[in-house]
């Protein structure tokens, strides 16, 4: 089985099958680039991901492992038919996978999924964040995401007025 060595920003190495790695658009491109530039077809590619630390990279690979037999979705699936993975239904495994994560980890996972071009993972993590917004008041959203209002002067009041007008109309 052909393997690839994926190295996180903090130096941790993960040895995974190329078949699994190629489910990431980014890793697939890197592997193919390595193959074209390498004289030795047996050589094992080594890919450094300088923006993703080991804990997050492990989670991404774990998710890929679980979903290795899923059909690979095109990057613009949402635009094509209005439905992404998230809307097509998360599996119980996905829910259990995401459940223990705090929002900080989820944000890193979103960035990693985006960087590595893993659309399914990106969809379900974005959906998770969206669920933390839906149904909450402005103050509750700020609290949940540790955000502060940075409106100046009467901007916030004006925004509120504009919103009221939109609802009225």
């Amino acid at each position: 089985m052909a393997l690839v060595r994926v190295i996180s920003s903090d130096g941790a190495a993960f040895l995974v099958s190329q078949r699994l790695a190629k489910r990431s658009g980014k890793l697939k491109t890197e592997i193919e680039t390595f193959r074209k530039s390498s004289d030795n077809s047996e050589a094992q590619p080594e890919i450094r991901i300088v923006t993703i630390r080991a804990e997050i990279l492990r989670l991404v690979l774990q998710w890929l492992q679980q979903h290795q037999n899923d059909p690979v979705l095109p990057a613009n699936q949402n635009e094509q038919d209005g439905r992404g993975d998230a809307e097509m239904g998360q599996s119980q495994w996905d829910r259990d996978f995401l459940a223990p994560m705090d929002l900080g980890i989820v944000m890193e996972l979103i960035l990693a999924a985006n960087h590595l071009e893993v659309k399914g993972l990106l969809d379900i993590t974005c959906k998770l964040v969206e669920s933390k917004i839906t149904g909450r008041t402005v103050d509750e959203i700020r609290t949940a995401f540790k955000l502060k209002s940075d409106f100046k002067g009467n901007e916030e009041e004006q925004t509120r007025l504009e919103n009221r007008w939109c609802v009225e109309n």
Partner: protein
Amino acid sequence: MASIDVLPNELLCKILDTLSTEQKFRAREVCRRWKDVVDELVPFYGVQLCDEKYDQVSTRFGTRRVSSLKFTCGHVYSRHSIIPIQNLSFLKRLVLTKSMNVDALTDLITRADKLIEMEIWNGYDSDWYDKQQTAVLLPALRKVKKLLLPKYEHGNQVMLFHSWKHIIQREMPELQHFEIDVSLENLFHPRFYWLATLKPNLREFMVQNVGRDVGFSPYVRVTTIWNVNGQSRDSEGLRKFNFINAPSSVLIHETPQWETILFNQNNLEELQLYDLVVPRPGKGYSMSLIEPVLTKSMATLHTIRLDIGAERIRASDDFDMEIFAKLATLRELHLSVRVVKFQAIFGNGINFLRGIKNCSTVISATLCKLVLHGFMFSTEEANDCIKQIAKLDLEKVVLFRGSTPEISTVWKGFSRRARKMGLKKEARVKTLYLPVEFAGIEFEFEHKKTSTC
């Protein structure tokens, strides 16, 4: 620990984009960044300016990017020369129902440089059409692709029609879609001939009844759609000719130019004629008389809706299903008799049934959907009709009110009945339901003509 702030705008956008509109507005209030992202997601708003006070408009609209603007007020802007909306560069649709201060109109037209659709109401106010206002509107009209003049006609404004004709022909090269509401009686008048010959490359022509005002005759909406980029020969010619709830026989008959247009088409794809009656003895558009229209477009017609005004049709105008056999691409056939004098056309229904019985060889092989509306059968005739229809290998059949006097008796247990009739399995009904609003029956067959539908 990473917060949501670490996400680039494209990812925050992806998250907020899935929120409901109401929740998006709430997200706008969280912080400036979220407001900007939401405004990118929902950048366009339809705005109606009614009795707003001038200074309130600015507050309410803020810096919103407006795509559609409707003015239902006139007097407010008689005192102001500036439209109090900052960003009009996204304005695509403008609806004017009242006259405006010329300076305000100039400001609007100057800043709204992406206008592609205009709706101009005349109503009871003809101020719109003075030369000064027209001159202000012209720069915008030159780029407009869609022009609507609802309830345009009031009184005898012949000159205004001529004005619009000249404006459309000389000043609006981009115009593709034109709609105008006129009274039914005026539509017969020669001054409306220009509606049908306004520009070359007419693709769709539709006359639709849109109701009536008290004291006035019924209004019809005439819609004309052109292909302005039609360079190749294949793209030329009328494709859709529809009269919806408007008496097509009368209109076509009384306006020879329209008759010429209809009878000269070779590539019609959709034909809908309402109230096929005989307005005067010896003239009119019964089935036999429209046969040339169907024949000329036999290679392209895919949808036909015919409403037969049985009230005045002559009994000798026999209904002949064979006319549809020539249509090699026909996919949908809707036949309707609006009045109950069924026997005036079909005797006791025998002629129609005879036509149906021969349908397997008569009706186009590509037909998928058959809709019958208003045909009266006895229970026995209906049974026979079902049997014949089921043999047609159709995908869907809809029978509306009047199809049978005893709907529940005839149709109950259709599948069982079909088996007794010895119908093939694929001809049996898959689903059967009664659309309540029409008191009709719709059933789909298991077998589908997937190659043509």
